[in-house]
């Protein structure tokens, strides 16, 4: 029997080099910890394993930057790339579709930019992890951080539902495990268990929704789903019970991952219980990856179901997302007001930020700017992620010196570490959204996208949503300012206050501050970059019949039968 498998292009593995490097480096870290570092004393062992992990992150970052360089060169100056890499590689890298592995993964500029972002954040999180002792299983802990990042990078790159789900599970299972790593504290185990139980139920529901989508459209590719649904015509989702169920189930899955109300219950307990660097990675990396893939699924695949009847409460997901966004930002901010615990406060604040970002998701689907409107969401995500990594480094500081995480533990910090206190002020102001820091421009861009639409039924409602968002920003000032009050207006305790921060704590705080300040004073480069990558990210076209014959004439000439899911299904409806 002839094997009519499709020929695989092995060069595709080069384009996922950062992910491959990180996966392998996880094993290196585990092995090196077992073989070499285990006999050292705790302090030097932690530093050694952390440094080894940072080397791996650096290698992956270098490969991601190299890929970024190649991809941007392929777009701007193809002949030069020809001379650098030779013709075969150059033509491979300048292929127009930007998809690899038979269209299951995206590659190209959007993926490269996101990979650089993930790896930079991961570097900061790993560095923070060396600040204090919270686990004895260091090799395993750092390996899980690396592997979670592999999941995030592939999740943000996925263009197909099966790949999406496995990447999502890789990311979250590593994070479930890492949250339970502080074995000396029962609440860490509680955090891991809670995260695991809520997470597996939401994953099951999410998978159920994905299977409905596959059943309805006959394909798992985002682009093909979008085209099949687009043929549905004006009424779209009306009367489609299965489609509605699929949408709601997928919203449950994404809502859990990004901690949107009413699927947020896990967030405060997990952020509080997990070790501070793990909380940082849950709050930033996993949220960024989930939002990116949510944008892809909802704008690219399910875009035709956004708001087909042009009324907010008509059939479509826009109304649901608007309600979720309003509930999430209001609840998150009001609940954060009551918190005395620094990590719980950050958890509720991250719920509130998920609400603002959901406004951006809703806005991007109706904005007149098209897919580029999603650039505002990406900008916000970058700024939010850096500010939170810095804020959680403060939590690691509290855990190291005070073995606690109350806001009151920060008392009098302005007198003992004035420079870092100023940095924390900047981070908090950016999280509130005060100009000239980047958080302000993130909110501004999202709210502007919400207002930038043609005459349509949703316009008034989104304007109200923007008003609610502004009101919420004011509310959020109260609890962020509480941190500033503790640092500046209270006296430091005479004994057992915060010691001097070492580089493991100071560097993430300073880097985050520099990023939010620089992106705030000069917002346009990052904003332009994000807008530029939003369009290819949300319009990556699946290799269907025409694209295949165009891109690889050799494969088209042999006329191999292609698997069903690869072509746009032509089944009778």
């Amino acid at each position, binding site marked *: 029997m002839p094997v009519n498998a*499709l020929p695989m292009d092995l060069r595709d593995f080069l384009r996922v080099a950062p992910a491959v490097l990180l996966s392998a480096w996880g094993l290196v870290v585990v092995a090196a910890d077992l073989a070499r570092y285990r006999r050292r004393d705790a302090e030097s062992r932690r530093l050694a394993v952390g440094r080894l992990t940072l080397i791996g992150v650096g290698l992956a970052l270098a490969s991601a930057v190299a890929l970024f360089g190649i991809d941007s060169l392929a777009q701007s100056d193809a002949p030069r790339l020809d001379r650098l890499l030779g013709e075969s590689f150059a033509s491979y890298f300048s292929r127009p579709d930007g998809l690899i592995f038979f269209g299951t993964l995206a590659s190209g500029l959007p993926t490269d930019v996101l990979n650089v972002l993930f790896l930079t954040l991961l570097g900061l999180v790993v560095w923070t992890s060396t600040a204090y002792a919270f686990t004895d299983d260091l090799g395993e802990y750092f390996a899980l951080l690396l592997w979670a990042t592999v999941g995030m990078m592939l999740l943000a790159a996925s263009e197909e539902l099966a790949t999406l789900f496995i990447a999502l599970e890789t990311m979250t299972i590593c994070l479930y495990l890492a949250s339970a790593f502080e074995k000396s504290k029962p609440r860490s185990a509680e955090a891991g268990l809670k995260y695991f139980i809520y997470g597996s139920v939401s994953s099951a529901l999410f998978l159920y929704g994905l299977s409905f989508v596959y059943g309805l459209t006959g394909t798992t590719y985002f682009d093909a789903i979008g085209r099949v649904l687009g043929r549905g015509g004006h009424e779209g989702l009306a009367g489609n019970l299965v489609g509605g169920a699929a949408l709601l189930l997928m919203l449950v899955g994404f809502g859990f991952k990004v901690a949107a109300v009413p699927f947020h219950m896990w967030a405060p307990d997990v952020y509080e219980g997990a070790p501070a660097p793990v909380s940082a990675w849950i709050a930033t990396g996993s949220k960024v990856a989930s939002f990116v893939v949510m944008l892809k699924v909802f704008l690219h695949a399910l875009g035709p179901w956004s708001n087909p009847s042009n009324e907010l409460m008509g059939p479509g997901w826009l109304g649901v997302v608007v309600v979720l966004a309003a509930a999430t930002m209001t609840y998150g901010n009001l609940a954060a007001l009551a918190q005395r615990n620094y990590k719980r406060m950050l958890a509720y604040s991250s719920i509130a930020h998920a609400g603002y970002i959901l406004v951006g998701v809703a806005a991007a689907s109706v904005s007149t700017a098209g897919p580029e409107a999603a650039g505002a969401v990406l900008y916000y995500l970058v700024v939010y992620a850096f500010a939170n990594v810095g804020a959680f480094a403060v939590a690691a500081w509290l855990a190291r010196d005070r073995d606690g995480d109350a806001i009151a533990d920060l008392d009098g910090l302005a007198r003992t570490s004035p420079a870092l206190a100023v940095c924390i002020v900047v981070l908090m102001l950016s999280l509130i959204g005060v100009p000239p820091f980047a958080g302000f421009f993130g909110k501004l861009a999202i709210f502007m996208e919400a207002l930038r639409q043609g005459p349509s039924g949703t316009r008034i409602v989104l304007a109200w949503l923007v008003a609610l968002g502004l009101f919420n920003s004011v509310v959020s000032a109260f609890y962020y300012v509480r941190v500033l009050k503790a640092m500046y207006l209270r006296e430091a305790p005479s004994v057992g206050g915060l010691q001097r921060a070492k580089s493991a704590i100071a560097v993430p705080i300073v880097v985050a501050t520099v990023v939010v300040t620089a992106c705030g004073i000069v917002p346009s480069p990052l904003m332009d970059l994000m807008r530029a990558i939003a369009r290819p990210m949300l319009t990556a076209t699946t290799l269907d019949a025409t694209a295949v014959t165009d891109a690889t004439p050799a494969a088209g000439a042999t006329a191999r039968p292609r698997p069903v899911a690869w072509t746009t299904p032509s089944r009778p409806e």
Partner: protein
Amino acid sequence: MGEVVVARILFLAIAALGLLAALGTVLSRNLVHAALHLVGFFFCVACLFVMLEAEFLAAVQVLIYIGAVAILLMFGIMLTRNTRGDDATSLSGPWRLPGLVAGLCLFGALVFGINNAVSPSGASPWAGEAARPSLVEREGEPAWAAERRRAVEDMGRVVGEEFLTRYAMAFELAGLLLTAALVGAVALAHRDEVGAAELPPTVEALPADSAEPVGTAAS
């Protein structure tokens, strides 16, 4: 019609065996026996897949559910040395009646739902045979029909090809996922030597002959 009768008798026999095995799983007090009954139930499901001409699914059912899941379950029971189950997890006393009512309600809902799906008007009988759609190649059939025919006829090969070409990355990622889960689980379950010394001697620390041999306890 002889083969139809044979098929019907076979189905009834397999279904009855499956029901018995399922009852045994729920009712037996010894966890090892319950797990063995579960293996029997999985096997009956695999037989039903064969009768539906889904041979590949049947093979996967045997390999994964019997070969991996059930064996993992047995290892779990043996490693925790808890063959008798936990009395706290089985319903007793005042909770028995509500549990029974809930179970019957679920049964009623399933009967109603399946009956409605099979014969909405109640007119057609419950038992019936349907042949699989013809797999003969026809002139001018669309591409998806040829593709589906190939997938049905030769499912193992098609699945294998997909795993190694289109889903190669997802397949590799699944491997990474399992590695990560294993590494993390070992790290979490691992007890520090210092902590172990402080704890009172557990079952593992006792001499081997004083521990109850697993699986020999009468239920």
